[in-house]
């Protein structure tokens, strides 16, 4: 089912590996008999916002925790800022900022107190007050953490990751479980950090989030990277900028659809069927759509549904694995 295609890697690393922000080579990790990470190679440039995208259980969290030095890989090399965990753990702890997926801060402390506490762990960094401003929590400065909303808690977690003024920032599923407004708020925050030139590595299972936030994305599935590149490159790899979806009603008619005739239409790059819905990757809508209608008419079919959308990373994932990101 899953075709492990290595899509062209985005901007290939220009500098020597030791100069990159993050470098993984042949990293593997198994828990009992489950292989969580199955041989990953990755280079992340300084100043890049890099996304690990994949369904739950794809190995994203294990990968990011190996990078954060919280999990020891069974095999492979990990370098951050040219340093390795075995030899420079104390130095690395000072230079990275980490936001974990499930941290619950003590409910009876205030925003200000927890930030002062985290600030005290770092030799250099940003004052707690300044970080509160960065995370837009000024009004909640003296509020107990137990009274914060989900989005505010998440921004606080990010503030705790930023308080040491890190060279490398890790965000594990920063918007999971948030309502749309809180997600957008958090995205704005990440945008600001990007434009300030920070190196960010984040995981997500929202393709729109990866598309919106990341300079480059690695799509993960079953512990492997199955595609790597800029969101635009990955979407282009599907074979078209647009996706046309149509259905033809009853089962008898479905069998009348001849896939070969459809893919023969100029401008159609790929065809697949998902739950009775035909999907075509299309380069130019305005010239191709009329041809699709005429081809269907030649087969004696009339579409019961017909719609188009711009291709997304979701389409890339479906194209590579035959599954939807949200299926799991």
């Amino acid at each position, binding site marked *: 089912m899953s075709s492990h295609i290595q899509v062209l890697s985005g901007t290939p690393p220009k500098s020597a590996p030791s100069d990159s922000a993050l470098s993984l080579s042949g990293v593997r990790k198994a828990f009992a008999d489950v292989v969580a990470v199955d041989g990953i190679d990755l280079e992340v440039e300084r100043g890049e916002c890099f996304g690990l995208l994949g369904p739950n259980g794809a190995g994203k969290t294990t990968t990011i925790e190996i990078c954060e030095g*919280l999990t020891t890989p069974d095999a492979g090399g990990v370098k951050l800022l040219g340093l390795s965990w075995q030899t420079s753990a104390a130095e690395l702890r000072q230079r990275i900022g980490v936001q974990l997926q499930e941290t619950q801060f*003590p409910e*009876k*402390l205030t925003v200000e107190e927890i930030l002062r*506490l985290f600030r005290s762990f*770092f030799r250099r960094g940003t004052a707690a007050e300044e970080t509160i401003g960065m995370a837009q929590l000024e009004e909640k400065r003296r509020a107990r953490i137990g009274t914060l909303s989900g989005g505010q808690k998440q921004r606080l977690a990010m503030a705790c990751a930023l308080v040491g003024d890190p060279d490398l920032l890790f965000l594990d599923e920063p918007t999971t479980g948030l309502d749309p407004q809180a997600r957008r708020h958090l995205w704005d925050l990440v945008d600001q950090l990007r434009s300030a030139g920070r190196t960010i590595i984040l995981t997500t299972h929202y393709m729109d989030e990866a598309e919106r936030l990341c300079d480059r994305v690695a799509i993960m599935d079953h512990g492997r990277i199955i595609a790597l590149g800029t969101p635009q490159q990955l979407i282009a790899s599907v074979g078209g900028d647009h996706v046309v979806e149509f259905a033809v009603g009853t089962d008898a008619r479905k069998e009348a659809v001849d896939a070969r005739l459809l893919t023969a239409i100029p401008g159609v790059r790929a065809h697949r069927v998902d739950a009775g819905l035909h999907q075509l990757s299309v380069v130019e809508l305005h010239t191709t759509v009329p041809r699709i209608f005429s081809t269907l008419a030649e087969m004696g079919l009339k579409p019961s549904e017909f719609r188009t959308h711009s291709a997304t990373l979701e389409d890339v994932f479906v194209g590579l694995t035959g599954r939807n990101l949200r299926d799991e």
Partner: protein
Amino acid sequence: MSSLTDSSLYQLTSTRFRLFFREPEAMFWIFVFPILLAVGLGIAFRNRPADVLQVGATSTQLTQALNGDKGLAAAAMGEGEGAHELATGRILLLAIRNDEGVAYKYDDTNPDARLARLLADRAIQKAAGQKEALQSSNNLVHETGARYIDFVVPGLLGMNLMGSAIWGLGFSIVEARQKKLLKRFVASPMPRWEYLASYILSRLVLLVIEVIAFLGFSKLVFGVPFRGSLWELGLLCVLTSLSLSSLGLLIASRAKTIEAVSGLMNLAMLPMWILSGIFFSATRFPKLIQPIVQALPLTAAIEALRGNMLQGMSLSQLGAPMAVLAAWLVVPFVISLWIFRWR
């Protein structure tokens, strides 16, 4: 970053205080509960004047003779009625007039009844004209330090030190682990030893408040004696608290949930509540289990506290219990550093 308040050890320790003082239930158990317990026990076991013993007699002459003793209250009754009163415990002894003289009916396994027998016989013999062979007189003493409340206050102090050390560490460490806060801390540059040290430091400060409140109350209300050096008493409290904190750390070093650690804490504390001599002397337990009883940290702590407070013993005389406490300080601490689960 030069001032004290910016240091991570200060921040970690003051976080511990904030979390403690924002938890009203914890304050109750540590500060109020031991005082309530001392009040309750003080009332229940207060020293009363010697009881008057109820007895019966079958003749008015005997009844008068018995009532001549201040320690006895006698009533005249028939033999049948007397037997019934004895059986129901309303009287301790029945004096029966017969041809030879007098017969006493009582239960010789009951200490009060044996006492009634002695008093009754003395009163009747005296009334019959017996003279004392030797002149005797009484000097009555009611000494503080020999009362039950004096005995139980050091026990309650030890129990309180154990509870606050084990609960204080156990719950908060496991809660931090369960909420993935420990994992978040180790992902930061926080020195791990400082995290554990912050528990010890906050414990020592709270200890001062806790001990002064409890002992001050016992002194003011019950007049409990302090026969040993107060500095040495303070030192014993610190040693006790550190040893039991070390045990608390060991209990909390692996558990992943509050439920699991609650069970472990009860498992550790229950034998000590029973065996360590909080409410009665630990030496009352059979010889067979004495080695276990004496090896428990709370037994050693209470023995040392009683030695200081009641007998005025100096630290040099308390070497054995202090050695037991020191062993409980070092061994669990080393094991827990080794097996502690940080995530």
